[in-house]
């Protein structure tokens, strides 16, 4: 072995500047993944330390190491299971007392710990003086002060790591639990009998955990101890005896002793200034969390977020599109040539897959801006303030103060995207509220739903377009909120609901490098997760909409029409000087030659360059060039004839596509669903459009386009739709719009739901319930509206009133927590 490997874990409470320490030590060499089996992010970095290569693992930021929260369990399992050679415990030096609480627990786990006092500059600014040496003596562990933000203390920290890795005294730190000590020793003796446990875990720590009633520790004991029942019974007896004798539960006694010790240590090592320090954050919060100004500032920030990411990002996406378009063209160029009527399978499949991917890549600028802005909000410390301001409102619907951001990103008004929305639910600490948020974010109006709205409003609500747009933009929120409450009262009822105890850290000015780093990390994660799956799903969808394909007869019919057009053209050719130079076999080549020329000159405005391209094409094939560019009298004549052929080709391809669609597997599904969807007013054509939207919602508009037979020129989709569906009324359109609003998450969003909920079951539930809800709502509106004889416009506002009423009604139903409190209050007043 040339170099040694050393595993180092980075622990610390939230808001202690842990990530700046991580960056200081590892620089840019890091990668992000998840801890196995859970949604908790695991950041790993590397650095060299003399001979050794160090792998640094960033543990989740936790206040403690109990088994109550997922993050704490993950951190604990890593410390005990992966046996890091050194643990760096990052602490906020300006807040030592609270941070020591975690340090004590690490030392009790008997892991080789370095206490890193970070943010020394803040402590200094607040007039605190820390006695590092004394703290070292009290803890019996190395203590290293740093200001990681400025890179101060980097070398000292590295040196401490290498010293501790080489020589760890193994002198375990003990917290004196006073009256509990006797019991701890008793249990220690019993645990030593376990051959597995006593080797893998520090026995004293395990005894303390058992006494605390830690569920994971109990579980572990059951698995390994030969006589676990005796140990557990004894533990229970001890717990009860202690409670009786000391009038305090064991776990409370343990926590209080630890806190008492932290307070004492802090008192002995930190000299505080005379006056209480009032930070700028305190001052700022007077306005930011103010009763009147707070909500206004919040709305302003959300408005800026929306404007920058969605509006400016949307513009940027259009500007960047030529890159993705270029990618599409590049792929099209290297694939086998297109045919007159049908293209080779390899070509059509590859083009389809590439287009599906570029459709997602198109949103990349929006995502990047979003991720960067979220990083700014997170780093600045505004997120907890947002939750603070809105928690009361959202809690009424089973959501959480931190559900705000996911809903904004999902498109609370018009235009958002469920993918970053669902991704942002990660920050919600309450499991029940988090799942509820994940399930309603896809109900927001994402950007891709908008084209269909525009078509339908343009076609059926043109005279009241503004109002109709307002309706669909805002009604989604009034559908989502009652649904969220309903979900949290039913399917999510049993899910753990965490208390809302949230630290409000001081504000920070985010650094550009930090924000960019975070945004890039997330974009990368997103690409890895989404793009590969989108490609796979695109293949499946391709098969569904193209197979089994046209019958022999129909194909023969189309071939016949083609041959006739081609023959006519060749006859014309033979009447000119180019006779014999273009035959039936190469008419397709002429058409493709023309398309290639057009493509080559796209975007070229410079005359000289344009002439150069022309010359190049003329050299390649002067005859084709003459026809395409109308050179000479014969060229002009043939160009006219060629245009006719091109028109026939386009028409045939369109008809074939529409027929292929109808006959496809997806088409059959659309027809099969008609008996159900008729109540919502959807015929099989609409069904196909809706089914195709599952891959990506933009497809609904595109599919309607191909069904109603539009091409690049001529009629708009709304006109051809109106012409194609004579029986359609505004009521139909309204039902369709509402269905689209409630449409299940598209494939990439579903993958994100699966990823964030960490379960395929929830993904399927999300898809299923939204489909059923959408069908129910659109059937209610369509059938109800028809029975009552309402116009589309009347039905629209009747439904709106219904939704608002449902929202208010749902808000009045008390949440399970409120019920609990009410009953406990009632109980106490009764006993008084």
């Amino acid at each position, binding site marked *: 072995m040339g170099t040694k490997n050393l595993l180092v874990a980075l622990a610390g409470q939230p808001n202690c500047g842990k990530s700046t320490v991580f960056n200081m030590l590892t620089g840019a060499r890091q990668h992000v993944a998840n801890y196995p089996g859970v949604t908790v992010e695991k950041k790993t970095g590397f650095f060299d330390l003399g001979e050794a290569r160090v792998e640094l693992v960033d543990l989740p930021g936790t206040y403690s190491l109990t088994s109550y929260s997922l993050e704490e369990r993950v951190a604990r399992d890593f410390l005990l299971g992966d046996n890091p050679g050194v643990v760096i415990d990052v602490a906020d030096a300006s807040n030592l*007392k609270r941070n020591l609480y975690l340090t004590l627990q690490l030392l009790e786990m008997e892991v080789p710990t370095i206490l890193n006092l970070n943010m020394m500059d803040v402590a200094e600014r607040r007039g605190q003086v820390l006695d590092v040496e004394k703290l070292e003596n009290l803890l019996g562990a190395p203590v290293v002060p740093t200001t990681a933000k400025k890179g101060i203390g980097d070398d000292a920290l590295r040196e401490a790591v290498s010293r501790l890795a080489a020589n760890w005294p193994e002198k375990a730190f003990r917290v004196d639990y006073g009256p509990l000590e006797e019991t701890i020793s008793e249990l220690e003796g019993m645990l030593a009998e376990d051959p597995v446990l006593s080797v893998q875990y520090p026995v004293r720590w395990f005894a303390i955990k058992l006494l605390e009633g830690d569920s994971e520790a109990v579980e572990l004991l059951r698995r390994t101890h030969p006589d676990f029942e005796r140990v557990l019974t004894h533990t229970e007896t001890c717990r009860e005896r202690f409670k009786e004798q000391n009038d305090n539960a064991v776990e409370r006694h343990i926590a*209080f002793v630890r806190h008492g010790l932290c307070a004492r240590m802090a008192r002995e090592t930190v000299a505080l200034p005379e006056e209480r320090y009032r930070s700028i954050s305190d001052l700022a919060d007077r306005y930011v969390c103010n009763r009147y100004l707070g909500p206004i500032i919040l709305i302003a920030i959300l408005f800026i977020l929306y404007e920058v990411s969605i509006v400016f990002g949307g513009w940027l996406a259009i500007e960047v599109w030529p890159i993705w378009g270029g990618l599409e063209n590049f792929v099209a160029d290297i694939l086998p040539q297109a045919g007159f009527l049908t293209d080779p399978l390899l070509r059509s499949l590859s083009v389809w897959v590439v287009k599906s991917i570029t459709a997602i890549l198109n949103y990349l600028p929006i995502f990047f801006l979003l991720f960067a802005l979220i990083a700014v909000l997170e780093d600045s410390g505004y997120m907890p303030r947002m939750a603070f301001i809105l928690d009361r409102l959202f809690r009424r619907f089973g959501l959480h103060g931190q559900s705000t951001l996911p809903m904004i990103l999902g498109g609370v008004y018009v235009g958002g995207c469920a993918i970053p929305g669902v991704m942002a639910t990660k920050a919600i600490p309450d499991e029940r509220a988090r799942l509820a948020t994940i399930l309603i974010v896809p109900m927001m109006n994402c950007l891709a739903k908008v084209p269909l709205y525009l078509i339908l409003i343009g076609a059926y609500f043109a005279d009241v377009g503004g109002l109709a747009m307002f309706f669909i933009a805002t009604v989604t929120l009034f559908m989502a909120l009652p649904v969220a409450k309903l979900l949290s009262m039913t399917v999510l009822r049993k899910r753990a609901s965490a208390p*809302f105890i*949230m630290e409000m850290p001081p504000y920070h000015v985010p650094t550009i490098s930090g924000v960019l780093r975070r945004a890039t990390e997330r974009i990368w994660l997103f690409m890895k997760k989404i793009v590969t799956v989108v490609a796979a799903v695109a293949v499946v969808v391709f098969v569904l909409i193209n197979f089994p394909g046209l019958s022999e007869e129909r194909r023969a019919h189309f071939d016949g029409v083609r041959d006739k057009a081609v023959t006519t053209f060749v006859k014309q050719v033979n009447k000119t000087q180019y006779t014999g130079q273009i035959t039936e076999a190469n008419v397709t080549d002429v058409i493709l030659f023309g398309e290639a020329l057009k493509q080559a000159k796209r975007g070229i405005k410079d005359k000289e360059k344009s002439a150069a391209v022309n010359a190049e094409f003329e050299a390649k094939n002067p005859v084709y060039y003459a026809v395409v560019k109308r050179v000479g009298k014969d060229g002009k004549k043939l160009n006219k004839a060629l245009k006719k052929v091109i028109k026939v080709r386009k028409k045939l391809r369109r008809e074939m596509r529409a027929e292929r669609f109808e006959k496809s597997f997806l088409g059959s599904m659309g027809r099969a669903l008609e008996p159900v969807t008729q109540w919502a007013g959807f015929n099989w054509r609409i069904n196909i459009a809706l089914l195709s939207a599952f891959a990506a919602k933009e497809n609904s508009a595109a599919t309607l386009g191909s069904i109603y037979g539009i091409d690049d020129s001529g009629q708009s989709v709304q006109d051809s739709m109106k012409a194609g569906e004579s029986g359609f009324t505004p009521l139909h359109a309204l039902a369709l719009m509402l269905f689209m609003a409630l449409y299940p998450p598209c494939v990439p969003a579903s993958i994100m739901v699966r990823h964030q909920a960490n379960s395929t079951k929830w993904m399927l539930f999300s898809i299923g319930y939204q489909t059923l809800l959408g069908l129910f709502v659109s059937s209610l509106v369509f059938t109800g509206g028809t029975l009552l004889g309402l116009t589309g416009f009347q039905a629209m506002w009747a439904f709106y009133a219904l939704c608002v009423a449902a929202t208010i009604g749902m808000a009045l139903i008390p949440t399970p927590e409120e019920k609990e409190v009410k009953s406990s209050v009632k109980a106490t007043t009764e006993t008084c």
Partner: protein
Amino acid sequence: MTLDELKPGTRCVMSDITVDGSLGQRLMDLGFYPGAEIEIVRNAPLVDPVELHLDGYHVSIRHNEAKHIEVDG
């Protein structure tokens, strides 16, 4: 007296926690222990939750959680 009864601007010292399980543990882990000094900083715009200054840092909790914290004025 419990913490939720106090008005913004007042100070108190914590004396006990009257809840067990995950809520009790979480409160203790965030620094609520007998002897901790607490200042009520402000209520949220919709009254709930409430922001506290606890031993050198800020934390916000809901009123029905503050009910479980016994304090001495």
